């Protein structure tokens, strides 16, 4: 199994809207994790199952550690859909704080308005 990240890249661009190299990379990571999740879970179960022979568990550990980095859930990072920024992204809107402010002031987010209390 080659370790190149290009194996998770789709032939055609399968994202729309704002597109960024880092956004595409994150998207590929999400796809990779989704595809390989059953295998990861099976191996994790084998590693933790004390009734299995020690050899099998060690083998499972090796296999799990040799899987591609992109298949790990920790690789996934929420990114702003409007600017691709990775910092201070609101989960509710999938927007960066700055993009959120601009769109809220422009009235593009339903129900969001300036608060004062």
């Amino acid at each position, binding site marked *: 199994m080659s370790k190149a990240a290009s194996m998770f890249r789709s032939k055609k661009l399968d994202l729309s809207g704002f597109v960024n190299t880092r956004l595409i990379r994150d998207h590929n990571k999400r796809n990779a994790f989704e595809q390989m999740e059953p295998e990861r879970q099976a191996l994790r179960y084998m590693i933790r199952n004390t009734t299995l022979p020690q050899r099998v568990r060690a083998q*499972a550990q090796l296999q799990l550690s040799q899987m591609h980095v992109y298949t790990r859930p920790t690789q996934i990072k929420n990114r702003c859909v409007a600017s691709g920024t990775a910092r201070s992204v609101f989960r509710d809107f999938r927007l960066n704080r700055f993009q959120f402010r601009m769109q809220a002031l422009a009235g593009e987010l339903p129900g*969001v308005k*300036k608060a004062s209390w």
Partner: protein
Amino acid sequence: MFSYTTRSAIGVGKRLRVPVPVRSLSSPSLPNAPSPEPATTTQAGPAPALATGSPDAEQPSEPRVKEWSQRLRALGEDTRLPRSVQAIYSRPLRRKAEYGLPVCDLQLRSYSVQNVEFFADFAIRAAYYLNLPASGPVPLPRIVERWTVPRSNFVHKKSQENFERITLRRLIQIKDGNPQAVQAWLAFLRKHAFYGVGMKANVWEHDSLDVAKSMDASLPEVEKTLRPHLEQFGQRHDNSADRSIFDVLDSDRFAERKNL
């Protein structure tokens, strides 16, 4: 005074009607013939009015439409609106619940008061005409979400801005209604869904105390419908061979999902 202003408004409309044929003549409807002469011959109706241009030629001898004041008086005296239309101007009618057994809880959510109030009113009126006793709308607590963001860069943390989103909720409860009528009501509301208003319904169905007997009676039919689904369960023959778990993980069947 009122009739005078309306009459003057009608006069403005008449005067405005004159430039319309002029624009249609000047527009190149016939690209081969840009001159206005063939167009005037084809359009016989408005052309003489344009050619004369005098306002007294346009005035009809007898007004075809009655004055507004006359029409309004006739509407007030001679006719009346249908009762269902009249009911719109008063509070919604309600059926009385006989037993008070809740059947359906409908929650309406919106960010604007007008939308949610209007649609709650609409839903209650629809329930009346479907013979469903409805109670409400009960104003449930508002959901307030607030966000504070810096106005600009990280350095200028002192200057921030607050945003909020307030979700308004209304609860409409249907009591001891026919389940089919409740379904029809919900379908009607979904068909005429109002913009910016979300709906969520909890529906309860009640059965007699002999429900166990009826469930037993319906068991063969349920089993028949479930059989194709249950046949999918169990271990495959080609899977029961003496193979290690790693062979299984590497097998084609397992790798199907990966599509790499």
